[in-house]
């Protein structure tokens, strides 16, 4: 790595090397049986250089030929992609506890046994088809640049995804459990799956119209994709954010607080620095409904003359081959004070949206969503009546998030989003009736 930085210095003004090593295991139970074990032992490096105000990029899995690696970066300078930024000097980074050595020693047999335990529990209490996956990730990242930054971290992550599929479909009630070390999935999550699945045994076709909709963590991706689109420095630069220039204004219900909380190392996605070596910190985006901040990587911060705030991430594909873009480490929506049972009790007529289909399509920058329920439970007078099929839920987040009734008191970690259930009113639901 040092050699590469030295070599890069000889041909460019500034350089940065990002190095990653990752081992992963994925144990997959389908229909309550062990189906597959997939593993990965991967590493690689990416290089960015800045020369005469232009940015070059190269990546490799095997540093067999350093010269060729460098040549690829130099060649990419020729197009003239501008770099309105410098690589940062980051010496002091927050101390986080992201690594638990016990996960390195956790045998696959332990993960298989845990999937079997959860599968058997769900099978004995429901009549559905059972799925359970246990996943481990052990990662090491190091970022070094010509400004003098040389920082690294090691992290361990354990995920369990389990649930019950409604027979005849490929959708069901699923719950995610996340930790830095292997530990059994809590009973509370398993019981929630069983309760919701069994409450949905009857299929109902309610009359459509505006109604209360409880966005569960599993369907919150519909809201999050649109919130993040509006808050991204990239959207500001592209003039497609409906909330550009509205900092300080109340845009949503006073119950809504939205933030990035990268330093919360209770979760394995905690980060002390982003993928460009900028130190992370807590950043509120919306506080009690009032817009506070947007998020930037080095590139868009440079273009917009804003201060970079530690939000350059190589998300959205193969980390080694992907260039940093504006992203979030640990996206959070602030919890409220209602239990899930209390939120359901507060629904006179409405749906519990457990999952959504089509959240990635539609006019995301505008905040519009129009998704098929997958699945949803229909609630009347605070009681779950049954499952709704063939229904669509539609709206615009800039309207929906003004109509927040209440927020759940417990947030769930889904990947790097840490989200409570959110109950909104006046959401359009189209059914076949």
């Amino acid at each position: 790595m040092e050699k590469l930085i030295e070599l890069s210095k000889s041909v460019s003004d500034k350089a940065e090397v990002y190095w990653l090593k990752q081992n992963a295991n994925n144990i997959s139970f389908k229909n309550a049986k062990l189906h597959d074990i997939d593993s990965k032992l991967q590493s690689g490096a990416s290089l960015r250089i800045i020369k005469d105000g232009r940015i070059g990029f190269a990546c490799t899995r095997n540093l067999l030929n350093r010269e060729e690696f460098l040549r690829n970066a130099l060649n990419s300078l020729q197009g003239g992609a501008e770099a309105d930024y410098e690589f940062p000097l980051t010496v002091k980074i927050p101390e986080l506890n992201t690594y638990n050595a016990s996960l390195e020693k956790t045998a696959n047999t332990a993960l298989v046994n845990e999937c079997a335990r959860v599968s058997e529990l769900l099978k004995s209490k429901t009549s559905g088809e059972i799925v359970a996956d246990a996943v481990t990730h052990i990662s090491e990242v190091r970022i070094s640049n010509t400004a003098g930054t040389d920082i690294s971290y090691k992290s361990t992550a354990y995920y369990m995804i389990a649930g019950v599929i409604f027979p005849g479909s490929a959708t069901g009630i699923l719950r995610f459990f996340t930790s830095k070390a292997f530990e059994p999935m809590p009973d509370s999550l398993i019981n929630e799956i069983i309760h919701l699945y069994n409450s949905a045994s009857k299929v109902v076709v309610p009359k459509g119209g505006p109604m209360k909709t409880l966005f569960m963590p599993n369907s919150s991706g519909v809201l999050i994709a649109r919130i993040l689109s509006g808050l991204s420095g990239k959207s500001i630069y592209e003039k497609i954010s409906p909330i550009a220039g509205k900092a300080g204004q109340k845009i949503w219900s006073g119950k809504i607080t939205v933030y990035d909380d990268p330093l919360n190392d209770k979760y394995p996605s905690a980060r002390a620095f982003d993928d460009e070596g900028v130190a992370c910190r807590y950043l509120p985006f919306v506080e009690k409904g009032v817009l506070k901040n947007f998020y930037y990587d080095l590139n868009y911060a440079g273009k917009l003359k804003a201060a970079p705030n530690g939000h350059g991430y190589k998300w959205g594909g193969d980390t080694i081959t992907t260039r940093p873009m504006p992203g979030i480490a640990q996206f959070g929506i602030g919890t409220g004070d209602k239990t899930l049972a209390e939120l359901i009790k507060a629904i006179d007529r409405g749906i519990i949206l457990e999952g959504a289909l089509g959240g990635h399509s539609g006019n995301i920058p505008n905040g519009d969503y129009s998704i098929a329920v997958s699945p949803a439970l229909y609630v009347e007078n605070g009681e779950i009546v049954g499952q709704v099929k063939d229904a669509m839920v539609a709206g615009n987040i800039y309207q929906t998030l003004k109509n927040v009734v209440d927020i759940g008191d417990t947030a769930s970690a889904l990947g790097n989003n840490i989200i409570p259930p959110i109950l909104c009113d006046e959401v359009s639901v189209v059914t076949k009736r």
Partner: protein
Amino acid sequence: MFDTLRKIINGAKADYADIRYEIKKDTIVAFNGRELSQIGSNSTDGYVVRVLDKGGLASVAFTQLTDASKSVRFAAENAHLIGKARKEPVRFAPTEVIKDAFIPELKEDPRKVTMAEKLELTRKYNNIPLKYDKIVMANISYREICREKYFLNSEGTEIREDLITVQLSGLITSRDGNLIQNIRVGAGGSDGFSSIRNQEKLFEENTAVAIDLLKSSPVKGGMYNCILNPGITGVFAHEAFGHFSEADIIETLPAMREKMKIGGNFGSDVLNIADDAPMPGQLGFYKYDDEGVKVRRVQLIKNGVLTGRLHSRRTAAEFNEPLSGHSIAEDYNYAPIIRMGNIFIEPGSHSLEALLGMLGDGLYVVDAKGGSTSGENFSFGALYAYLVKNGKKTEMVRDINISGNLYQTLKDIKAVGNELVLRKTGGCGKGQLNLRSSLGGPNILVNNLVVGGI
């Protein structure tokens, strides 16, 4: 290369082992408005080893040759763990041993086109929408993926195949006050660089649609009879039906597997669906899958009756059905899974005018904006639609998102148009990305679709 690969899997001492080594060259030119945001070309490489032994199948993807023996050992240990936990052993359907090198013929090899020319061509297309005041952003990118694949298994198969994909795609965004609209645009293919030349008309037409969308009204949510144009018919064939023709999805869902029995009736006589990956010239073309099985055309539905399914060696054995050659990996990061190659509803006899006449009142829905499925229910977004009144297209409407029940909707396909159109760009995400997932169909008339509106 094959010598190295053979040495690696010889260490497995298993019932069966295979290994795939790939060099993936990824070239990109991307614009963010008038600014060039990315340009460059990089090669990365890696291996995937799979071991089938003692009734279990497991895989390890690795990038360092020094990790080869460790990876083979892990795969074998995990295979044994699976075999021990299962009552029914994992088996592979037999297939012929193949020794072949397949390098596709291209209409202009993109690797011989200079980066400067790729840059200028992408800039030219990107600048087309930006000429107009109402267009606030164009994000057009050129992407070229060249996969040089070496596959070898313990049965003696040795295959070298190259897959070369070019894609010109992106988003055109229009804005009027607070109203933001966007439209996806794409061209490309797997038969050479010529597929992205002379695409000015495509960009002009899509720019006009992005501007027209600002003047259109949102569709009113409700149930509609619809004509789906070829772009969205293909997404319907792929999302709503096609994924459940992939045997690995229904293999472990007993109720869906029961419903999807060969010989079952799924639609009216007018409905015929095929996956034809060996069809030359289309995006999804390949010769061998990532298990070394030669791909063949599969008739999935004939006159409304389910007649075939897409298989890997594992699922063909499990279902006791013929192999089809549809086990495909995104790249060296992944073990293969079952993917559609080129799925389409086969054309029938009706012109668009005749279909509009049969529709009477409803929607003419144009081109897709993503779709997904949850088994019996599906959802897809459309770029836009026209209201149809008395068999005539009238005003444009936007924010079209459609959902439905697969089985009911297949039965609600009432008539099929006469012109087959296949998509030029892909991007199916089933845990892995398949850039070469081709799909299409003719215009089709479908009754009773739920449209979400906003």
